[in-house]
């Protein structure tokens, strides 16, 4: 069953068409990659799905519900979470606090309860702290909770962003270039991790990636965008051999040159 569907979705910025009539279906519990040259519209797609932009035309459906036009926080409540291309953590908050913010919508405490320090609130806070620590451990940041997010090394910041996204208990997780800036060892670790997310937690993953090896290794399905349009879709092998994809990435002349040897 498709958990995320876009139908003829179009997004314009002034005269520029960032995404044109996109039909996309992401199967539940799939790891689905979106690739394409720079400027193809991939991050714009994410922004539309999460409600940051409103599509000019078309529809977006999530888990059987129409979501285009909803506010980002409403969409988060429905179970969509994301990470960002250039990491957007809450820099001046600790790692633990970052994750706690991720738990926000699953907590029930009100400000009145907090002021009165009612037992229910205290209980919930204790639970939240424990849960946040568990999530940090899950991503490999055990014991790092009290460091300010901006003081964490790059790799750990990426992990923290993941932990924060996972705290929202998403059904669909949008990962924007999760292996950017990583060395091969870290990349392998991330691949394993993403698989775990799907296998153990049942989360559907929609992935933007430039790292072809990652895409080919991990994806169940790949969609290729170029200039805002879908030019190819299928299994990794199918897409890899699609001449349209090769041309989009490399340009026709170079392909010919290589073909001629």
């Amino acid at each position, binding site marked *: 069953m498709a958990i995320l569907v876009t139908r003829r979705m179009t997004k314009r910025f002034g005269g520029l068409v960032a995404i044109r009539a996109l039909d996309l279906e992401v199967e539940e519990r799939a790891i689905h990659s979106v690739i394409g040259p720079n400027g193809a519209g991939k991050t714009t797609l994410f922004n539309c799905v*999460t*409600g*940051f932009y409103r599509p000019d035309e078309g529809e977006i459906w999530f888990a059987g519900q129409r979501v285009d036009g909803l*506010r*980002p*926080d409403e*969409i*988060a*409540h429905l179970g969509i*979470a*994301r990470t*960002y291309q250039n990491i*957007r*953590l*809450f*820099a*001046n*908050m*600790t790692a633990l*606090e970052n994750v*706690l*913010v*991720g738990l*926000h*919508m699953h*907590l029930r*405490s*009100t*400000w009145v309860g*907090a*002021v009165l*320090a009612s037992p229910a*609130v205290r209980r919930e*806070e204790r639970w*939240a702290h424990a849960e946040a620590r568990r999530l940090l451990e899950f991503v490999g940041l055990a014991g790092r909770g*009290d460091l*300010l997010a901006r003081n964490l090394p790059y790799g750990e910041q990426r992990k923290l962003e993941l932990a*924060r996204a996972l705290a*929202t208990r998403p059904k669909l997780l949008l990962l924007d270039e999760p292996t950017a800036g990583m060395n091969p060892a870290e990349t392998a670790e991330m691949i394993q991790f993403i698989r775990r997310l799907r296998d153990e937690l049942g989360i559907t993953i929609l992935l933007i990636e430039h790292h072809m090896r990652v895409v080919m290794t991990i994806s169940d399905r790949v969609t290729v965008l170029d200039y805002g349009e879908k030019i190819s879709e299928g299994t990794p092998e199918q897409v890899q051999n699609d001449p349209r994809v090769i041309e989009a990435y490399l340009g026709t002349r170079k392909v010919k040159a290589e073909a001629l040897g």
Partner: protein
Amino acid sequence: MWRVGLVFGAVAWFVSLAGLVEALHGRWVVDGVLSAGQVLLLAVLLASGWTAARRSSASLVGRLWAGLLAGATVGFCVGLLAWLRSLVDLRTMFVNASPALFQLLSGGRPARVAWAAAVAVGAGVGLAGAAGACAPARAVRPLLVGAAAALSLALFQELVLLVLQPEPLAPVRDWLFVAGGGPTAQGIAAVFAFSAALAALRQASRGRAGRVALPPRAQRVLWSVVGVLLLAALPIAGGPFVAQVLVIVGLYTLMGLGLNLEVGLAGLLDLGFVAFFAIGAYTVGLLTSVGEHGIAHWSFWAAVPVAVLVSLIAGVILGIPVLGIRGDYLAIATLGFGEIVRLLVLSDALRPWFGGSQGVLAIPKPVLAGFEFSGPQHLYYLTVVASAVVAYVAWRLQDSRLGRAWMAIREDEDVAEALGINLVSVKLLAYGLGAAFAGVGGAIFAVMVGSVFPHSFQLLISIQVLALIIVGGMGSIPGVIVGSAVLIGLPELLREFGEFRFLVYGAVLVAMMLLRPEGLLPAAAQRRELRAVEEEPVELARTPVGAATEGGA
């Protein structure tokens, strides 16, 4: 290097012509020998030598020479000013260029002689400044501490004298102060030496392994106890004037706690904040006044909850239109709202309700079980209680789900929204609760003054509250208290510098932003400290030898 000297020479000119030197001249640092005005000029000279030495990359001798030159240049400029004065009366343009000033600058001697003397003195003091810059920091720092302590004694001599009033303390008083005048030479020297020695000792003990210091938790308890004792005793020891100052500090603390929710936690820059203070004050005024504008004759205690509620609602109402605005623009928009409120209340058009420029008068003092809170001391205790309650609420909020949501909004609003935070309700809660805190302050203000007029609610106040939060440390509750004490309390105590209060204010703001933008007691440092206590007490033993845990810069 004489460029540095010229810059500081310009500073010396400014400080003289703007009247600072003369105003400070009225206060003795050493009675009959050294005035605060002279100290100011000396400080400029020292600073010029210090800066010149710092800037110069030459050898030790070279740097000392640079300092000397810079100081001499400043002295030259000062002498030049005195000489100009002897030629032409500068008062047509510079109103504070009085004869007394030039008497001071020239030391009473004829212009030429004074000029040479100024250059010589400048050179000497500049050299001293350079020496300070070249000497190791460990040697210089205690001296600075000693100087600061001595200056504090001089600046706050009235307060000290007040505290030393009781008879048993007479010998101390007579030793420290000349009767009816300023501090004695031995008094100043003693304070200087004592403080410098303490600082040096403290510094030396830091370098040794196994710090002789209490664990952070015990430290906090100690400071809290000291704080509470001070709070209880100060108004009694200091008298009604000090109590009045403390009430004002308390009111600004209340406002600061409120604005801290908006700016420090949620990152919502609100320059119209004084409007909520005003609303609280006017509500209490209108509800309790026995004069012509009072619409009811309630007791203070019944009026306060209403005032808080009205302020809260006003905060929400004024917050709704600006929900989508961010950053600088939000500051300006809220400034606009604040001014609109003030102008409307001031106008003749609304005079029948709000009393126009004359305001609402005849507000009675609160009465509790037959006891009237008539004096500033009584109101002081009321303010302390109110501040404590509000501070507690603020503290609980900070550490809650809502507080984290606020901080998330401050850091990155879009990401916060993507994590499921409803921006509208969270922002409106910030505006509403912040306004409510201000309303409490306004309520107390109304009964303190006995009347409310629009003139008391200017933009200036919003800016002062913002400044005290920034200087104290954004997002930090102790920071608000410190900020209030420093930026509000100190100037009130130093009344005679009233004219220059905002001059120093502005300079302090700029200096703080340039040097220490996170404030005096920033939030992050405290929270880490707090956490270190509660969760990892073992951490302390692992503190490396010789490292200071506070910013030892």
